[in-house]
């Protein structure tokens, strides 16, 4: 290649890339996405998709890019080119998902991919030097990096900060973002990046700037040398393959195909590599996994909007009751959004632990250099920790995260209502208690709502908002607005025991307990669930949620829904709680947790408990696959029932809630897409078989039966 150099400007820690190509002044341009302008002897090629906030590699973009590049190369007055985006903070965000979705078959996608490759190949082989000036997010192109690090980027799609990219050799030069000057910082930074890039382009043409570093480091030379042995390469492929299989359980086809493409490219040359890449890309685009993940992408976008409109008042002060794991977690995701956050606990020890959690969350970001220590301190200045209700009259919203006991919740709501102003919203972060029961103690039930966060709050994206019949629309709008500010993906569901998420999880956990009682080892149970695509195994999940919480929920929901929620014996969980095995937080649950130890061993003491409540497995429904489907079908059936009963607004929110809140396998796209893909009839068939052995816990709900009867009925069109 004649030389592609990349300059990067980093904006607020995110890597954005801007490409700009140079355009010869032409009065008859009909192009809308790519244009160019000649400055001196440098063509500045600018990318700008007028229809979107980000630039994507659409058909239009690719066509115009090819046209422009041809003109640039044909223009004798042009010696070099600069590729830049006119959008602050975005170079090219990636391929256009809608474009891929619009393809009818794998061949069409393959063709699209080949056109994209051609464009990149053209740029790579450009006879005139091209400087890529990148400002903001840029899709990966591991051009000149060594194989190992290239693998890392391609497989995980992780983000790389600009300074890291420079160290890795992905970009040649960094340009610092500018502050305000004669224009806004964003506009001026782009101009500046372009100016610097033009100077570079000229420098390359004048041979003042060398195209490639002549001296490789000893390390990279050594690396290239070693890589020249087939044996070594095969070992690398094998290691990477093993890692991928371990992480993906083989449920995600793309990473394996990527290894295949790289291997083809390295072993058989670039032409074969490109062909393999485009063909595999075409195939992958039309897999169910692709449909599932694209569905989740669209669902996530939809759940990041407030369909209840703008609330009358913005929440500027948010008070949280209870500085436990949840309360402090909610504070953590609120305090850095410019919201004054009050964290109240009843004991100094509890408050101190909670404040430390908030500090640690921010300090970890400081250590990773995502924020400076001053940003950390200034964010923390928005947090007030206290033991009393002073200042609560200024709160716009109070979220309670106190112990899950209806009497305590009632006491708290009365205390709060005695001090807050009339407009203040009261939200409960309960995971199972019906909101209307909590609201029964309120003088203003229209201001009461459920906001169910998931632990750990700063990692889990989902927020489940629960409205009762009395909750006002403005209260809902305000809760959604707060959740969106906190960066959450939000589903709004109807009230009822366990709402949506907890209600789906409970029968699956009941089944998991039965599986344990039938003599399956916790490790085996975990392997079966993760093997199905759950990121966390059922036994580990119970430990994470807390055995006491699980027991509580199982008992409460058991009372509410009766034998349908049976299966495993609740006494198993209760005995564990009595013995102090409350899960990870107590050091023992299904497993034993020792600080510093990554490998966890099964808690030997639960053997006795399980022995006491032993059940005899029925071999007809106890194969590995049957156990998996017993667990999953109860989850899915309950989800469909929630839709049938109107707890859920639609299947899309049901899928998002299950995947983002409970870790339902993303490759399956959520319970509803799973039913669509597998076929409701097939699922019903399995459930009937289980029903014959265990009874009504496996009775398919009416909506599921409707779908089974008529295969044209789908949850997702």
């Amino acid at each position: 290649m004649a030389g592609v150099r990349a300059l990067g400007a980093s904006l607020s820690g995110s890597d954005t890339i801007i490409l700009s190509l140079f355009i010869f002044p032409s009065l008859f341009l009909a192009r809308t996405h790519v244009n160019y302008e000649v400055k001196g002897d440098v063509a500045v090629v600018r990318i700008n998709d007028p229809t979107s906030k980000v630039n994507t590699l659409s058909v239009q973009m690719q066509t115009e890019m090819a046209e422009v590049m041809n003109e640039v190369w044909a223009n004798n007055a042009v010696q070099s080119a600069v590729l830049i985006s006119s959008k602050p903070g975005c170079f090219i965000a990636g391929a256009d998902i809608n474009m891929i979705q619009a393809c009818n078959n794998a061949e069409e996608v393959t063709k699209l991919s080949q056109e994209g490759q051609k464009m990149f190949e053209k740029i790579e082989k450009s006879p005139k030097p091209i400087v890529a000036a990148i400002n903001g997010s840029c899709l990966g192109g591991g051009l000149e990096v060594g194989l190992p690090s290239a693998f890392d980027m391609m497989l995980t799609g992780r983000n790389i900060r600009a300074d890291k990219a420079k160290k890795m050799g992905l970009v040649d030069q960094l340009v610092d973002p500018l502050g305000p000057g004669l224009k806004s910082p964003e506009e001026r930074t782009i101009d500046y990046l372009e100016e610097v890039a033009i100077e570079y382009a000229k420098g390359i043409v004048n041979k003042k700037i060398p195209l490639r570093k002549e001296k490789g480091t000893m390390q990279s030379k050594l690396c290239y040398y070693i890589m020249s042995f087939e044996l070594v390469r095969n070992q690398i492929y094998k290691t990477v393959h093993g890692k991928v299989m371990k992480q993906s359980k083989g449920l995600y086809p793309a990473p394996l195909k990527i290894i295949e493409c790289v291997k083809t490219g390295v072993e058989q040359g670039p032409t074969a590599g490109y062909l393999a890449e485009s063909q595999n890309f075409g195939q992958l685009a039309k897999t169910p996994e692709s449909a599932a993940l694209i569905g989740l992408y669209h669902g996530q976008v939809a759940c990041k909007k407030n369909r209840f409109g703008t609330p009358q008042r913005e929440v500027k002060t948010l008070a949280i009751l209870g500085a436990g794991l949840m309360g402090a977690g909610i504070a953590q995701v609120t305090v850095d959004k410019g919201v004054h956050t009050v964290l109240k606990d009843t004991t100094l020890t509890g408050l101190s632990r909670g404040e430390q959690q908030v500090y640690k969350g921010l300090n970890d970001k400081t250590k990773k250099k995502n924020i400076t220590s001053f940003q950390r301190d200034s964010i923390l200045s928005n947090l007030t920790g206290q033991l009393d209700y002073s200042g609560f009259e200024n709160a716009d919203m109070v979220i309670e995260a106190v112990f899950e006991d209806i009497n305590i919740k009632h006491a708290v709501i009365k205390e709060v209502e005695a001090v807050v102003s009339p407009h203040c919203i009261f939200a409960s972060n309960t995971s199972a208690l019906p909101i209307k029961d909590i609201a029964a103690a309120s003088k203003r039930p229209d201001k009461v709502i459920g906001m169910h966060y998931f632990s750990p709050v700063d990692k889990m994206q989902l927020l489940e908002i629960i409205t009762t019949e009395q909750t006002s629309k403005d209260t809902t709008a305000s809760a959604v607005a707060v959740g969106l500010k906190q960066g959450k993906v939000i589903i709004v569901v109807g009230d009822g025991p366990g709402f949506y998420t907890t209600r789906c999880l409970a029968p699956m956990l009941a089944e998991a307990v039965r599986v344990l009682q039938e003599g399956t080892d916790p490790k085996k149970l975990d392997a079966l669930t993760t093997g199905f695509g759950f990121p966390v195994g059922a036994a580990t999940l119970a430990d994470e949620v807390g055995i006491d919480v699980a027991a509580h929920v199982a008992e409460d929901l058991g009372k509410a829904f009766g034998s349908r929620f049976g299966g495993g014996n609740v006494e198993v969980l209760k005995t564990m709680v009595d013995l102090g095995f409350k899960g990870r937080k107590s050091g023992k649950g299904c497993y034993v947790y020792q600080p510093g130890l990554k490998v966890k061993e099964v808690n030997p003491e639960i053997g006795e408990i399980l022995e006491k409540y032993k059940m005899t497995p029925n071999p007809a429904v106890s194969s590995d696959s049957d156990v998996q489907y017993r667990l999953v079908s109860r989850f899915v059936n309950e989800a469909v029932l929630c839709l049938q009963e109107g707890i859920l607004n639609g299947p899309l929110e049901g899928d998002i809630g299950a995947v983002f809140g409970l870790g339902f396998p993303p490759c399956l796209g959520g319970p509803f897409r799973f039913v669509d893909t597998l076929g409701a009839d097939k699922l019903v068939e399995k459930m009937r078989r289980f029903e014959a052995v265990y009874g009504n816990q496996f009775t398919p709900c009416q909506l599921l039966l409707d779908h089974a009867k008529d295969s044209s009925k789908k949850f997702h069109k």
Partner: protein
Amino acid sequence: SKYVFFYVSSWIYTSISYCCYFPSVQTKSKKTLARPGVKNIVLVEGVRTPFLLSGTTYADLMPHDLARAALQGLLHRTGLPKDAVDYIIYGTVIQEVKTSNVAREAALGAGFSDKIPAHTVTMACISSNQAMTSAVGLIAAGQCDAVVAGGVEFMSDVPIRHSRKMRKTMLSLNKAKTLGQRLSLIGSIRLAHLSPELPAVAEFSTAETMGHSADRLAAAFGVSRVEQDEFALRSHTLAKKAQDAGLLQDVISFKVPGRDIVSKDNGIRPSSMEQMGKLKAAFVKPHGTVTAANSSFLTDGASAVLVMSEEKALAMGYKPKAYLRDFVYVSQDPKDQLLLGPTYGTPKVLERAGLSMSDIDVFEFHEAFAGQIMANLKAMDSDWFGQTYLGRKSKVGTPPMEKFNLWGGSLSLGHPFGATGCRLVTTVAHRLQKEGGQYGLVAACAAGGQGHAMVIEAYPQ
């Protein structure tokens, strides 16, 4: 309305007095800035040691030695009795830990009465401005009548510390009771513990060095390398002219122990555009525009001024040089607007004083970097910036260059951080006398994103 009346009447009075009594002197018919109920505070005298490149003749001194020299120079020049001042305030930035209240150490050594209290202030490059305005505050509040203010910076020696880990070990060693404890502490020292901590001219809050920030600022305002080099060359050329013409009267001679008498600044080096153009960027590499030649250099130096209430000065038989009038401190974003203090301070202080840019006869702006000065000038000349960041209807307007830093500036004379403020004020006073102007304006930027501006009025001659 009372003020308006006063202004109008005093304007008429001064107009008449100038027009009628001194018709031959080129004066402007301007009002005085005196206000009823506000004490007139005057600058009686201002001096400074020669400003030297750090590591040159002052290399073996300590900061309080330089400050002492400035104080003695002031005493000498004013003939001030050593017990006639009420208070001494000094500004400094990089503190020598042994003399953290450098004002007191210098005052004692300069022979001031040990009954005169002294304290040290710090506000980055406007530390001695802070010392002066603190003095103004004490006098205005009626607590003092005569205060010496000054500033000192000594970059030939700076505190270099052991690493935090090493310091912790050494402090624990102090407390260790048994030989075993001591040995185990000594044994815990690793090679990495020995690497020292060097002070940097960097923002603590952003970890960005000032030169780097200046380069980004220049880029934000589209200041070219040529513009910067031209301004730096102008500064050196004007400084050389002023030095040769003997205009830098504030400089005192200083016999450095063990060395020669120093009586001139040694950083003034007018060069050529070609030579300056050869230098590589010093901070943003390689495409930056700020170089060693268009930045102020590390400097050793000290300054001192005598500030008094007008009555006290007159009672002691002094002929004051100037009135110290309105002043402001401003602060803004330390990352992207680190060095824009003058842009924020200038309109604010002018408004306070009821003056417009065209009323000012003498401008003395602190030149941290040529790029910083040019960026400030462009910011003041931008309607967009004025509207977006200063909340104005239009731009501030720029000082005319024929009134701007005519005797050189920090780029050429040098910039001992803590001492520059007094130099600026004294220079304004001297230029007003020399050029026959009535109002002068001082403006400066400082680390931390802070800034300062002060209006100075000539004392009737």
